[in-house]
């Protein structure tokens, strides 16, 4: 097989669906126009723990337009089969309207179905629920926690005891909510015992399996459609209770039902990045070689489920540390269950490790970049495996040069600009390269255009575009001649759009599928006596601009259209697959060096990020413009995590106090100044056939510590708590 020239891949295309999006024609979950649809609105619990003692629905039912009020008193029993497919964590998931128990604040306790949204909303506010409330426990602080995972290599305690330099730190990281622009929403329609869901999800197959499990119906009876997702950052990786409520309501009223969560409800039932307390002890010699790290992270989970995220990997593989111990604990609280949020686990851990490394550098008088280079491993010490690729040194070298790191005066509080103290900081970012089985289908039509599909999701990174690019090159077509479709369970299966695995997995499946389709066309041509390519070795044929031709003799060839027309074919089609080996012989991660410059108002304690540069070792960049969107988005998210984002719980009653976007602060345009991304040229073919390592999660990791380290450099104040607010710096 002759390699195809790569024209589309690597070129900075605008989103193929950009026009649809900016003209409002892209249909997000709730936008689908389903004839006869009525509206459901959820009533939330106003206590965090206890029992429902009474529900008065009479006022709600008396409202014009109200069709039904569903509560645990009249809801049918639901099956809730075990379901290992849909990212449900260990434990017993919330079962909607199945009993009188309240497990967390904002738990759905009723749903009102009405002919208009306004009627449903108003009636929902009239449902009177009485409770027997018990004192909830929602505060992680100081709780011992349950051990979840341990890891050890070498003897961390002994190495700490004999270390020349020691640090002993405790970090506090606030809970964060994903807060995508599009709230969660679902439309449910039953046709007999077949269910169709239009859903906001990052995993249509996950939603399909969970809906089937809840209602005890065969998976094939559920179809999930999700062509557009208005951002998710991880919140769409599980199927949350409102999906079951929409389907239940649709079954109860015998009509399709639309259900959208309000912004406030986006803080109740759809996951969040858990709050952390993280004890970290570090030992090193005077040359800055880290000899030991002892990690004791603790994060919150719910009483009904045990959340897991990848908290421990970084501490095991990031640096060349011979002695490591880790104890991960969870604290079970009367809260909803967390869910992976951009850079899950890694973002939180990296804050602690990278701030500690900065402290070590300062203490030893070693440049923070140099300190990291001194701790570069030559293999992954947690597995002994070689790295597929690891170009962190290059990231730092390029970054230091482009950022002007050399001009930095290492002394804290040494640079001033009017009322602003200026500081710069650096941190390492890293995220693991995940791959999963994925399938795709491609069809080449007689008119020379192709449709490629896979049940993937596009929550914003630009899957439509990047897959089109891969397919276009593999088929030898122009980008506009290829249409990629996604987001429907009738399509070949794809993994969730999370853990940065989609490009590697679905991209490789698309590559395989389109390679097969192209080969099919080539075989047809070389075996066809009427073709100018008759008798040519298939390996010598490439397709360029829809024309099959001999590689070294471009004049000899014909177009797909000619080939199909002559053979009386309406189309050619192929199925393809990517099925990664279960155990790779390599340690596979993507890396970055993150540089930040902040200003801190000398009297008022305000922190503003003045510029930021990240250099990524993320393998091949399929779509540079989309990559930039990811990088900038990740840095913006990191600024939020570092300086603003904080879900506040009132521990007296478990209430989320700032469940709205006026009080839960995220960065606004005025906070975003000069953000720049550089990608190291190259690819990683050991990771996957198309050489990518994943970018969407990586871009958030390392941002918060780079900012925190810059704040220290600006002010001489070391903050171990996120977000960093004025009160810590006054």
């Amino acid at each position: 097989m002759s390699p195809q020239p790569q024209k589309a891949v690597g070129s900075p295309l605008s989103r193929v669906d950009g026009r649809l999006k900016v003209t409002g024609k892209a249909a997000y979950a709730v936008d689908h126009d389903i004839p006869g649809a009525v509206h459901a609105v959820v009533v939330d619990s106003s206590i965090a723990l206890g029992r429902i003692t009474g529900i008065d629905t009479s006022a709600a039912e008396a409202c014009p337009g109200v069709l039904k009020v569903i509560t645990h008193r009249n809801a049918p029993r639901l099956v809730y089969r075990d379901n290992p497919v849909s990212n449900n964590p260990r434990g017993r998931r919330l079962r909607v309207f199945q009993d009188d128990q309240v497990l967390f604040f904002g738990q759905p306790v009723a749903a009102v179905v009405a002919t208009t949204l306004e009627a449903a909303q108003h009636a929902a506010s009239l449902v009177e629920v009485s409770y027997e409330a018990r004192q909830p426990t929602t505060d992680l602080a100081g709780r011992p926690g349950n051990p979840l995972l341990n890891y050890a290599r070498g003897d961390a305690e002994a190495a700490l005891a004999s270390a020349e330099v020691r640090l002993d730190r405790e970090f506090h990281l606030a809970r964060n909510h994903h807060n995508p622009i599009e709230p969660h929403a679902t439309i449910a329609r039953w046709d007999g015992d077949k269910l169709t869901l239009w859903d906001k999800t990052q995993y249509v197959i996950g939603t399909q399996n969970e809906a089937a499990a809840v209602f005890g119906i065969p998976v094939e009876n559920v179809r999930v459609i999700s062509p557009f997702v208005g951002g998710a950052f991880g919140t769409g990786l599980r199927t949350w209770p409102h999906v079951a409520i929409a389907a239940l309501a649709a079954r109860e009223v015998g009509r399709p039902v639309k259900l959208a969560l309000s912004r406030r409800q986006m803080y109740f039932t759809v996951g969040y990045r858990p709050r952390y307390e993280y004890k970290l002890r570090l030992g090193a010699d005077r040359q800055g070689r880290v000899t030991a790290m002892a990690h004791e992270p603790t994060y919150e989970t719910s009483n009904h489920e045990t959340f897991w995220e990848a908290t421990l990997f970084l501490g095991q593989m990031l640096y060349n540390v011979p002695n490591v111990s880790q104890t991960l604990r969870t604290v079970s609280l009367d809260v909803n269950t967390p869910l992976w949020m951009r850079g899950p686990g890694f973002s939180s851990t990296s804050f602690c490790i990278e701030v500690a490394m900065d402290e070590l550098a300062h203490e030893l008088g070693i440049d923070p970049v140099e300190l990291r280079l001194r701790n570069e491993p030559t293999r992954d010490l947690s597995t002994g495996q070689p790295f597929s690729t690891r170009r962190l040194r290059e990231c730092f070298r390029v970054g230091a040069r482009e950022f002007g790191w050399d001009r930095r005066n290492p002394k804290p509080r040494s640079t001033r600009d009017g009322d602003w103290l200026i500081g710069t900081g650096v941190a390492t970012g890293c995220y693991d390269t995940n791959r999963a089985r994925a399938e795709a289908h491609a069809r080449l039509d007689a008119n020379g255009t192709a449709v490629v599909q896979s049940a993937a999701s596009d929550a914003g990174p630009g899957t439509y575009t990047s897959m089109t690019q891969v397919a276009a090159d593999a088929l030898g077509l122009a980008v506009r001649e290829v249409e990629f479709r996604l987001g429907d369970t009738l399509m070949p299966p794809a993994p969730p759009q999370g853990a940065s695995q989609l490009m590697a997995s679905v991209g490789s499946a698309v590559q395989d599928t389109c390679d097969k389709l192209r080969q099919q066309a080539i075989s047809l041509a070389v075996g066809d006596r009427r073709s100018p390519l008759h008798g040519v070795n298939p390996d010598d044929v490439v397709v360029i601009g829809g024309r099959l031709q001999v590689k070294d003799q471009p004049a000899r060839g014909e177009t797909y259209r000619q080939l199909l027309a002559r053979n009386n074919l309406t189309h050619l089609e192929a199925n393809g697959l990517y099925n990664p080996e279960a155990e790779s012989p390599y340690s596979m991660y993507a890396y970055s060096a993150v540089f930040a410059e902040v200003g801190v108002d000398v009297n008022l304690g305000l922190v503003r990020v003045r510029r930021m540069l990240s250099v990524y070792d993320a393998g091949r960049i399929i779509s540079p413009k989309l990559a930039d969107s990811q990088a900038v988005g990740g840095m913006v998210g990191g600024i939020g995590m570092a300086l603003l984002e904080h879900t506040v719980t009132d521990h007296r009653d478990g209430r989320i106090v700032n469940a709205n976007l006026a009080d839960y602060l995220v960065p606004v345009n005025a906070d975003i100044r000069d953000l720049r991304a550089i990608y190291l040229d190259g690819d990683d073919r050991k990771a996957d056939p198309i050489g990518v390592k994943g970018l969407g999660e990586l871009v958030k990791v390392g941002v918060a510590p780079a900012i925190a380290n810059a704040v220290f450099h600006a002010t001489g104040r070391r903050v171990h708590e996120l977000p960093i607010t004025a009160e810590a710096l006054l």
Partner: protein
Amino acid sequence: MYPFSYTRVSDLRTAVQAGSDGGRYIAGGTTLVDLMRETVERPGKLVDISALPLREVTATKGGGLRIGALMRMAEVAAHPTVRALYAVISQALELSASAQLRNMATIGGNIMQRTRCTYFRDVTASCNRREPGTGCAAREGFNRTHAILGTSEQCVATHPSDVAVAFAALEATVHLLGPAGERTVAFSDFLLRPDNTPQREQSIRQGELITAVEVPAQPRPLRSGYVKVRDRQSYEFALTSAAVALHVRGGVIQVAKVAAGGVGTVPWKLSAVEQRLIGQRPSEALWTQAAEVAADGAQPLAHNNFKVELLKRTVERQLRVVGGTR
């Protein structure tokens, strides 16, 4: 949202009539509609006053300004006379909300806006201001953004407006038109501290309409400005803010008008700071010395202790920005 009726009025008499009959005025609707959605507000009858002829800035005889209640925030901020004579008003408005909101929101609505206390806006929480006698969830709850001045046992919520801080500093008056005719109220008497009746927020009577805010004349030249301190660069209410106006003649401060926002249950006039400034020569030392008394009487809560120090520094900063040094 509770059901409501809606009428649009185009003359003052009909407006006041409708207001006296239990109607609730709606101008830009930027905050009332939000509160209705949260069911914090449940007016049965909305009277849309946005077409009333209260949309100009006029110079008063004495050399002051009269700002029509239906002027949009953006219009006032950009108005050449306002910019030239009272930079502090322009700046306070420009640092408020967002461009979209400022294009819709009116001056009358702005000073009438209700607190941003999150418990107030969450109808499942106890709140004396929303439902007298139910208690104050904020006092022992999360109160980082709450007031340190003018609080009571009953309520500790701030008044959120920025331009009201400028009005308080400049000693504006509020013009009202009601069924019983016109009257004026000094700005300092218009917004009420919570005391034992936190549900009473303004000294306005049923049916009364704000027609204008009048800013009195000041000796010239007057240098003025507004600073707003907040976690993010834009689109957030103030943690602290300061409005400052100074008239310096013969090297001596003759007139000083200073008020603070984000810290009081009403915009907080800083008379003690003004007193320390008047008759003095501008200097770094003076700014520091005057700002020292800015937080006198503060009663911080569990999470807003930092506002005490931050307030002093905010006032000091703005004195320096406006007054410069010699």
